[in-house]
């Protein structure tokens, strides 16, 4: 505290401010270079917009007027760099971190933030493991793969048909997602005609599809990646199976459309965690503010990082302190209307009622439904 006051005195340059102002830095960690740089910048800009708006409104903590600032670090979407960056943020005295983008970066970094007692809110990482490590202050504002599995199962059983056949690729992602789908199908009055398995290297699915055909399901759920989903759609058509097809975010790509060729139709669905911007409660307004400030379009994650930064600041306000040790406990209790909807976390740190969007194949591309 003493050091900070000294630093402030120096920083303040004896500006004889009418009221003493304290600078509170929030860290942002995301890939700011490389192929995902546009997404990382999106996250950084979301946080910037949030703190600038809070600064404009004015926040007072413990009697002091607070000026928020951002320290952005580039994790290069790389797990090793992510841990270096996390340590740098922890050492430089930021009060909270919004990041990272990739689950592979978020998970190793979360350990360092946890040890440093620094709250972390990820706007983009969906792997369930992130919030299952029993860390007190690890949160995310985007739906995780468990929530996605529930959404797929519910949509399949209630909208596409009662009899569901489930295929997964036996990877951590595919199997985890499929387990959640199975639970959700049963919870929503559907029944599983069978569960089949393949691998993330397979190209021939005729044997399992023939078996599925004999069970005559209304819908086939594939939990795996696009490189399998594409050829699978082709073979579904080859065998004359009329069932609908739905897959998770691993198959919700342009690659599937390319690989499936003429075998993909309006019978194909997929899901992605998160909402498209225009469907978010505060989306339209946010988009205008964002465009005005950065002269750029929202990619995907800016609303999530905006709400992540807001959650941290709201928690600081509730605890009346920017000290991580004091406000960390309040993040789990925040409940405010954000851009993406109501921002509130469950006991693990996942966003409550995380949104998952269902897409349907229409006119050559995936189109958002609901």
């Amino acid at each position, binding site marked *: 505290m003493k050091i900070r006051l000294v630093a402030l005195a120096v920083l303040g340059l004896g500006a004889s401010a009418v009221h003493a102002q304290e600078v509170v830095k929030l860290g942002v960690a995301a890939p700011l270079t490389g192929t995902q740089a546009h997404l990382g910048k999106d996250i950084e800009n979301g946080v910037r917009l949030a703190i600038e708006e809070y600064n404009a409104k004015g926040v007072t903590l413990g009697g002091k007027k607070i000026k928020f600032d951002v320290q952005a670090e580039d994790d290069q979407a790389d797990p090793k760099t992510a841990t270096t960056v996390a340590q740098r943020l922890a050492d430089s005295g930021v009060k909270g971190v919004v990041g990272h983008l990739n689950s592979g970066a978020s998970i190793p970094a979360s350990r360092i933030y946890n040890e440093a007692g620094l709250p972390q809110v990820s706007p983009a990482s969906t792997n369930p493991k992130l919030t299952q490590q029993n860390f007190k202050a690890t949160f995310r504002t985007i739906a995780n793969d468990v929530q996605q599995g529930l959404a797929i199962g519910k949509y399949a059983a209630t909208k596409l048909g009662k009899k569901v056949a489930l295929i997964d690729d*036996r990877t951590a992602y595919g199997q985890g997602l499929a387990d959640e789908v199975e639970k959700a199908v049963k919870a929503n009055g559907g029944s599983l005609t*069978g*569960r*089949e*398995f*393949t*691998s993330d*290297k*397979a*190209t*021939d699915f*005729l*044997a*399992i599809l*023939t*078996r599925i*055909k*004999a069970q005559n399901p209304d819908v086939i759920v594939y939990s795996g990646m696009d*490189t399998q989903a*594409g*050829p699978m759609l*082709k*073979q579904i*058509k*080859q*065998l*004359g199976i009329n069932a609908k097809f739905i897959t998770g975010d691993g198959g919700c790509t342009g*690659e599937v459309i*390319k*690989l499936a*060729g*003429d*075998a993909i139709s309006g019978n194909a669905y997929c899901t992605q965690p998160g909402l498209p911007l225009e469907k978010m409660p505060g989306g339209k307004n946010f988009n205008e503010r964002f465009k005005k400030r950065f002269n750029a379009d929202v990619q995907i994650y800016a609303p999530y990082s905006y709400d992540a930064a807001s959650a941290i600041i709201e928690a600081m306000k509730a605890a009346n302190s920017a000290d991580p040790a004091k406000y960390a406990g309040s993040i789990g209790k925040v409940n405010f209307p954000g851009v993406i909807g109501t921002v509130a976390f469950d006991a693990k740190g996942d966003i409550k009622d995380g949104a998952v969007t269902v897409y349907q194949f229409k006119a050559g591309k995936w189109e958002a439904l609901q």
Partner: protein
Amino acid sequence: METLLQQTVNGLVVGSVYALVALGYTMVYGILGLINFAHGDILMIGALVALEAIRLLQLHAPDLGLIPTLLAGLSISVVVCMILGYTIERTAYRRLRNAPRLAPLITAIGVSFLLQTIAMIIWGRNYHTFPQLVSTTPIEPIAGVFITPVQIVILVVSAVLMVALVLLVNRTRLGRAMRATAENHKVASLMGVDTNKIIAATFIIGSALAAVAGVMFSSNYGIAHYAMGFMPGLKAFTAAVLGGIGNLGGAMLGGLLLGLVESIGAGYIEDLSFGFLNSSYQDIFAFIILGIVLIFRPTGLLGERVADRA
């Protein structure tokens, strides 16, 4: 019943591709005693070269028609693979012909990695869409069984090639020389057989078959990428061992059988094991069969005809 028939057709189609590739393994093994692990990657190169050739043809000669384009692409890829097979034999294996068995084996694995890496540099890591020149839309189902024109082509082409190869080996001078070399290449060379030429010919023929198999594989599934040769290569090797490596008839039988076992295994394993096993054991199922066969018939189903070779 329909399901069983459908699984049989599925199995026969996959099995014929395995059989074609297995022939390459078995011919080389029969003559050299070498397991050419790079063989699966020749299949991959065959598919990717054909893909590239077809793309170029479609760009520069769009009026050629579907079947001529495919045949031209196939011919180019067969020729490229023949040259590749010869080059690999000449540069990587010939020098090691009298070396201990492990040396060429490790070299073969090295060549496999080399081919994959080269393909990765040229064509990248992405999956490519293979042009659908023969339709994959099923024809009118026969007795409830769906079969596509591509699958029919695969069955017919494989059968024709297998018969042609058997005729080549059993009825021609080249075939006789190959059999002589397989039996004892020192004695064969004393009898005036140019064994180097014969061995080169074996690699060339095997590579041509692999190229055809690669093009058929990619046409069927509509995809091609740099690592696609690994699984069919491994399965074909298994098929060759199952049938009795070194034995042509064994490779064909092994290939078809493996295809059938996989397909029917994946389709019925859950019912047969009362829910204890499921289709995640699809690949393992084939290897269980292999294990059982090898316990009772260590030289494979039809046995190795050249087993007593020194």
